[in-house]
């Protein structure tokens, strides 16, 4: 499961629009659409959060958005999503970053069969640096919270947080 943040969503939609009208893609647009293609090849489940899906669903008349929505699933909030988001906020994460990380940890796929995401994909480098800087502390805090939860929440993990370029690089070197 790869969870796309709103900036990756934006660049992917722009990349689709540019592709349809033969406009040269920028590096970020190219990485975003490349990631989507690679995800299809490796059968990754590409997800967005319901907040983003709600905003995009009002714009279904736009062809690029319809094409994008056809390629992604919409996560749902799993049990303990809000509690973990609150804890992340206490550790200095912005509201939106805390919610994205919480979807990556306690989000559910549409069928409720998969908890969290293996990777949260973003172009937001300050967010990535903040996550890396607090990683050990977040692991401890998550461990303290999940130790008393029932399965599958007991086994909840933090997602990896990376840029599309970093994830593609990892996939190419495997």
């Amino acid at each position, binding site marked *: 499961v790869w969870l796309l943040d709103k900036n990756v969503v934006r660049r992917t939609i722009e990349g689709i629009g540019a592709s349809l009208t033969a406009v040269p893609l920028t590096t970020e647009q190219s990485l975003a659409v490349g990631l989507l293609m690679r995800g299809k090849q490796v059968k990754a489940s590409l997800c967005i959060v319901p907040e983003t*899906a709600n905003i995009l669903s009002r714009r279904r008349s736009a062809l690029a958005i319809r*094409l994008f929505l056809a390629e992604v699933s919409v996560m749902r909030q799993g049990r303990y999503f809000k509690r973990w988001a609150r804890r992340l906020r206490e550790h200095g994460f912005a509201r939106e970053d805390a919610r994205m990380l919480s979807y990556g940890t306690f989000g559910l796929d549409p069928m409720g069969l998969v*908890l969290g995401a293996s990777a949260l994909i973003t172009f937001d480098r300050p967010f990535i640096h903040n996550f890396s800087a607090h990683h050990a502390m977040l692991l401890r805090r998550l461990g303290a919270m999940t130790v008393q939860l029932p399965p*599958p929440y007991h086994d909840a993990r933090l997602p990896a947080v990376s840029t599309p370029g970093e994830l593609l690089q990892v996939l190419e070197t495997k």
Partner: protein
Amino acid sequence: LEVNDEQETTESVVDHVFEEVVVLTAPVATPLYVRRLAQVLRRLTPAEISQLVQLVPELERARSPWVIEEEREAIAYFRRAALEMTGGTLPSPQDEFIEGLTYEAYFALPEEKQDALWERIFAEEETGPYDLEEHDAQPGARVAARQERRSQDD
């Protein structure tokens, strides 16, 4: 920025990067603004190049032979998907792309205006058909992430 045409080391580093990019993009004429940017970059020291790559990590990946191929595949895929979705018509640059803007108008906007437009879009009300309530996992649900197990001893 100090300009020194005799900086062979700097030039060779920059040449190395751009020669590969130029080879990869050979079928497409290099736009004037790219050639101008290359002229500026040729004047950077290796340390400055390193700083630039830190600021724009995509530059490293741009040397990768997979990049252009992935992009070509993606372009072809979405053009096919669009033809299927519309019954055989690709949009023209004068068709609407988003928020009442045509493709042509949107892609002609300066980056900061595109940023402002998307900020407005994503600042909208987040409720809608997809609910924002918590749900229970199905029995037997698995965990997606395969990161290291958190340690209680940390």
